[in-house]
Each structure stands twice: as structure tokens, then as C-alpha cells.
């Protein structure tokens, strides 16, 4: 199995040139809007957003979570976490329930609201390029080294090295642990929360919240079924005994409904 890949985005190095942004448009054949590219927000036609915040360039795109919420919530497993780390979308499975849009902690998947038969759209880590042995388009385009692509483990070491060697950095790799870890790692000289990334994420993977409930289902079915059957037997027995004591009358209770039905 290949090693899981990742991105490291170093906010201090980004010069907001927009090369990654245009590379993403070209690779995914997306329409290119007029005007300032920093105004182009994530949407069904923008898988990568480069925004200006506090005079820094901030990247927003799919984080390619290690334990992706989108893949966990999808009823038909339309999202797949591949072994190289990319979270990709199989559009022919999708039923369009939008649970992925609803659930993603980073609000990444976007929906084609204006189509009669809409699909979900988001960055796919340039999956086809990676399996061809190339880099994702945006990483290849980046001239300043703000965005680098590599094995996630190596990138984490690299990020720690940078933080250790330069005290300007905030001592936190965003994405190392958030929601169980993500493939896109970010380091910065001010808090990522100030730059617009959700600051309230804990380290636990979000999908475990629902899995804790879902894994109980077999037990609920077995215990619940047995319990109810037992109750039925008990109350049935009690009724029988009571009827036997009071003598005569109809027989058991469930033939009663039958005779009532046949009556009319």
C-alpha cells in the first residue's frame, strides 16, 4: 500500500499570486470568474479558495480528513477514502440527500443547486494525477513553496522542524489532530482560528459520534425483539390464566381479532 499523501500549506510563505487557484480551475475545467480571485468562494465551481485574511493568503479546500465525515455519513458510500489519502466522490452512486454537505465540519462539499439532477462537487486531491505519479495541480503550480505535497508523515516532521526553528510560528499544526487528523496541514504565524478555520474542533473523529450509536443496533434488535416477545408471552399467559379462571368465554386473544374481522 502506498503511503498516505498530504499537503503542507505554510501561510507565512504564501504571496497570494493565485497560481494554485488558476491551476485548480484548469485541471478541473471550471469556469474562470472575472475580477479578484480572492473573492471566489468555495462553490460547485471553485474547489479551492485563496482568501486574503490579515494580509495573509489562506487556503480553503477539502481537508481530505483521515477519517472523513462525508464518507461516513453517505448512505451509499459515494465518498471513498483512498489509500493514498484522497477522498474521492463516485457520482454514479450519489442519491442527492446532501447529508455530506450538512455533516462536513469544514463545510466543503458543494451542491449543484441549479441543476434538476444535481451532484456534489469538491476537490478530489487531483486523484487521477497522483496515481499517474504527478503532483496535484495546485501544489505543482505554487512558485513560493507555500504549498508542498508529499507523504503526510514527512510533512508533519517538516512542519515541526519549521516551527522549532522559527519562533514566529504558532506551535500548532492545524490538521495534525483536528477531527482525527487531515491530509491538508496548515501552519501559520497567527492562530488559524483568526484566519477563519474552525477553532472549536476537538481531536476525536466526528464519525465516531454516530458510530457509537449505530453499533448498538444489532443489540437493540436482538434484545428488543426478545424482550418484546417475552412480554407478549407473559401477558398472553396471564390473560389465558385469567380466562381459564373466569371459565368459558372466548379463547385466546389473537383469534379474537380474526373472528372480529370475519364477522363483517
Amino acid at each position, binding site marked *: 500500500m502506498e503511503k498516505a499523501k498530504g499537503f503542507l500549506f505554510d501561510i507565512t510563505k504564501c504571496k497570494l499570486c493565485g497560481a494554485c487557484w488558476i491551476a485548480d480551475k484548469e485541471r478541473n475545467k471550471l469556469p474562470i470568474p472575472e475580477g479578484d480571485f480572492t473573492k471566489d468562494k468555495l462553490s460547485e465551481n471553485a474547489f479551492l479558495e485563496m482568501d486574503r485574511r490579515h494580509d495573509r493568503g489562506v487556503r480553503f479546500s477539502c481537508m481530505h480528513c483521515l477519517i472523513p465525515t462525508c464518507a461516513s455519513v453517505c448512505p451509499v458510500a459515494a465518498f471513498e477514502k483512498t489509500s493514498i489519502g484522497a477522498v474521492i466522490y463516485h457520482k454514479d452512486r450519489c442519491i442527492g440527500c446532501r447529508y455530506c454537505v*450538512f*455533516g462536513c465540519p469544514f463545510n466543503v462539499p458543494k451542491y449543484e443547486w441549479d441543476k434538476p439532477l444535481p451532484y456534489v462537487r469538491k476537490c478530489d486531491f487531483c486523484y487521477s494525477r497522483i496515481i499517474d505519479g504527478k503532483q496535484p495541480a495546485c501544489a505543482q503550480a505554487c512558485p513560493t513553496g507555500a504549498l508542498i505535497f508529499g507523504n503526510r508523515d514527512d510533512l508533519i516532521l517538516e512542519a515541526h522542524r519549521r516551527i522549532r526553528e522559527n519562533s514566529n510560528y504558532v506551535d500548532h499544526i492545524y490538521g495534525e489532530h483536528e477531527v482525527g487528523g487531515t491530509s491538508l496541514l496548515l501552519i501559520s504565524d497567527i492562530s488559524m482560528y483568526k484566519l477563519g478555520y474552525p477553532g472549536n474542533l476537538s481531536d476525536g473523529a466526528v464519525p465516531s459520534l454516530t458510530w457509537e450509536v449505530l453499533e448498538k443496533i444489532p443489540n437493540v434488535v436482538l434484545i428488543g425483539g426478545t424482550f418484546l416477545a417475552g412480554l407478549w408471552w407473559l401477558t398472553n399467559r396471564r390473560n389465558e390464566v385469567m380466562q381459564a379462571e373466569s371459565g368459558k368465554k372466548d379463547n385466546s386473544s389473537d383469534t379474537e381479532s380474526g373472528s372480529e374481522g370475519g364477522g363483517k
Partner: protein
Amino acid sequence: MAVFGAGGYSIFVRFVKGLGASTHLSDSFPWGLWVGFDVLCGVALAAGAFTLSAAVYVLHLEKYKPLVRSAILTGTIGYLLVIFGLIMDLGHPYRIWHPLIMWNPHSVMFEISWCVTLYTTVLFMEFSPFLFEKLKWKKALRAVHAVIIPLVILGVVLSTLHQSSLGSLFLIVPYKLNPLWYTPWLPVFFFMSAIALGCAMVIVESFISSVLFRRGLEIDLLSNLGKVLVVILSIYGLARYLDLSSRGALGLIFQPGFEHAMFLAEILLAIIAPIGLLIFPRVRRNKLGLFMSATMVVVGFILNRFNTSMTGMVRFSGVKYLPSWMEISVSFMLLTIGLILFAIAAKHLKIFDEDSPCLLPWQTCRDNVVCCLPTPAKVAIFSAWAFALVLIWTGVNDFARFKPLNHPTHTESAAKSEPNDLSQYPNLPKDFTFSKTDPDIGLVTFSHSDHFLVGAECKDCHEHAFSIISTDKKGAITDYHSQKYCGSCHDGKSASNDCISCHKK
């Protein structure tokens, strides 16, 4: 007719132009009325079927038998409408069968699709005897009766799963849903409220059909059900209270905002008012009293589903969502279809047990509905409704004035340098003490005014719907010190990092 015209047109727009043209949904608010009402409420309103069939067939509480048929009928119709609602809402409705083939057991939605499918089948089978009777298919009738007990048990188990899983659906958004509604107990609460709602629905529909078909009312049975309702609601109410207080979220109830008004309206209608009324036998035994209380429960829990799926999401999503007229018209049309189906079935199939003497509706009214209700109860009912309406009204009003925050990943966070002027913000909240910090080293007290004075805006910390509370899990204590929270300013440079500046002891 108008209902069908508008509904039909909306369906047309939905399938020709897409969801964007027919609804007010967006990427920030992907689920709206069709999920919140058609699906969540449709399923919940069908809960009478499993509650009563469990009581009658499994627990042998034979006295409730006269009610079980109409409950099963409502359930069947309810589920049909849910499926129809799903067809409207799904992006690719013709793929509705995909979850049956393409499995993902980690998905709550997957579980729900299976429950809908299986339980609709079960309901149809439970319902089929009414048809077979009409058609005089004795053999088929006997066949169904032979399996009715396992069938009912299966139905109860499936319903339990389904009702609770609608709550689990929202477990996945701890960072988005308002902590007033987000709790790990959501599945349990949804299940409990479904039982209450099921009982209330049986009361309401018996009452309505008694007026429609001019038949008598099983008032003894129904008031018994009212008693059951009080018990369930009390347990439910207590559980909600304990949950809120254990998460330290009780304070949120009094934080002004439309969430607060909607929450209070929900609690008032679903729990407080009905318990307060039904606890008195005089109200319980009175037709109007019983009916009004049950209606409150129904409306209250519909509100609960709305709040969980919509109100609680607004603040995070940062957009105002109000359903478009097309969404409303489709939902309304579904409701009408449901009522018509119910009326047809009730007329032609043997739904209500005896063909009771015709009681003229006005006679019923004059004789024993209005006059018999004790005045305090009348006043109580009236004021509860009025109060709830006022609450909802203030909620909606507040909502209209509410300025959406930006999309959370798009917030220009204010690292403003000039200090704020305290007088420009007279309603600044009081100091807040974090309940979960370690008392040994002194509780952490957060001073709103101090932060405000150094130039912080409320939204700098509270943009995620007060989620410091919602995510307050293990490990959170140290987190506040880290770069992610307080520590990002209290680093010894921009602000003091002396323990004593927060921990007062």
C-alpha cells in the same frame, strides 16, 4: 384545488429547474422544510401505529383495540408521505433504492433508508387485513393474522430504530447545531418524544374523525391515554432538563435571540402546558380539554423537529433560511393528500370499531365540549397558546432582525486595535464562569466587559453558536490554554498569561 395547483407547479419547477429554483436551500443550509417537516415530522406523526400496536398486540392491553386501526392507518399514510417527501428532496430520486444495494453501515442515513423500506412494508402488512376484510379474502386474512405478532414485534423494533435514528442524524454536527438541541442523547429524546407524539396523534385524530364522521368518542380510553401522556412527558421533560444542566447549557435558555424564544415555545407547548392541563382528571375527561392538550403536544413536537433541524442550525450556517412558498406548498399538498387518503380509507374500510350513533357536531359542542370545561382550564389553555404564539412571534421577529454572521471560514476576525466604548453596548452579558474547570485551582471567570474593552467583539469568540459549551469534552480544560482558545491572546505578549488574571482564587 388551489393547494394542488400550487403544489403541482412547485413539483414541476423542482424537477425542471432544480432545487435552487424551488427552494431556499443553499450550501450553507442544505436541509430545510422538506427534511424538517415532511420527513422528520411525517415519521414522528406515524408513531401512534407502533405505540398502540405494541400496547394491544404485545402487552395485550385489549382495551385500546378500538384505536389501533386508525393509528395503523395514519402510520401507513404517514410513511407514504415521507417517501413522497424524500422523492422531492433527493437530488436523484430515481436512485432511492441505492442504499439497499450500496451499503454503508456507518451512515445514519443508510440505517434510515432501511428502516423506511422495511417499516413501510410492515405497515402495509399490518394494514392489509382492513383491505382483505373489505374484499372478503378470508385466506389472506388468516395468513396475515397468523404472523401478526412477529410482524408487530418487528414493527416496534424497526420503529424504535427509525425514530431514534432521526435524532442520531444530527449527532454528526456537534460543531454546527446549537447546544440547546445538540446532545449525545438526541436519539433517545427523539424516540421518547415519538411515543408521546404517537399517543397525542391518536387522541387528535379520534377527535377529528369523530367530528368528520359524526361518531362517538372513546373518551374513557382517550383520557387514559392522556394519563399515559402525562407520564411520558414528565419523564421526557425531566430528561431534557437533566441533559441541559449536565452540559452546562441551561444558561443558554435565557440568552436572548430567536433560538431562545423558539426553545421556550417548544418546551411550553410540548411539555409544560400539556402536563399542567392533563394532570387534572377534569381536563382529561373533557373532550375539548383533552383535544387541546393533545394538539399542543403535536404542535410542540413539530416545533421540536423544526428547531433541531432548522432553528438550531441558523446561527452556525450564517444564512437566514425561511422556506420558500414552493417548499411550503408541496408540504401543504402532502398534508392534504394525507387527510384525503385518511378520509377515504376511514369511509370505506372498517377503521373505527363500531358504527356509533350519529352525534351532530354542533350538538357535541353545545352539550359537553365548551360548557363542561372548568374556567381555569379554559384560561390556562388560552394563555398557553397565546404565550406560545407570542414566543414564536418574537422568535420570528428576532430572526428577521438577525444579522447573519459570515460563513465561518469567511469571517474577517476582528483583531481590532482601538478599544471599544462600553457605553455603546449596554447589554453586555455578565461575567461567565466556566463550570468545568478545576475548582481546586479556582474557577475560570470570563469577563465580557474586560474583553470588550480591549477591542474584542462578541463574534470573535461566539461565531460557532456558543460551541465552547457544545464541545466541552474531556481534555477541554487544557485546551483553553492552548493557541486555539484563550491562549491565542493570553500568551504573555498581547494579553497577560498570569494564572490569576482568569483563575480567581
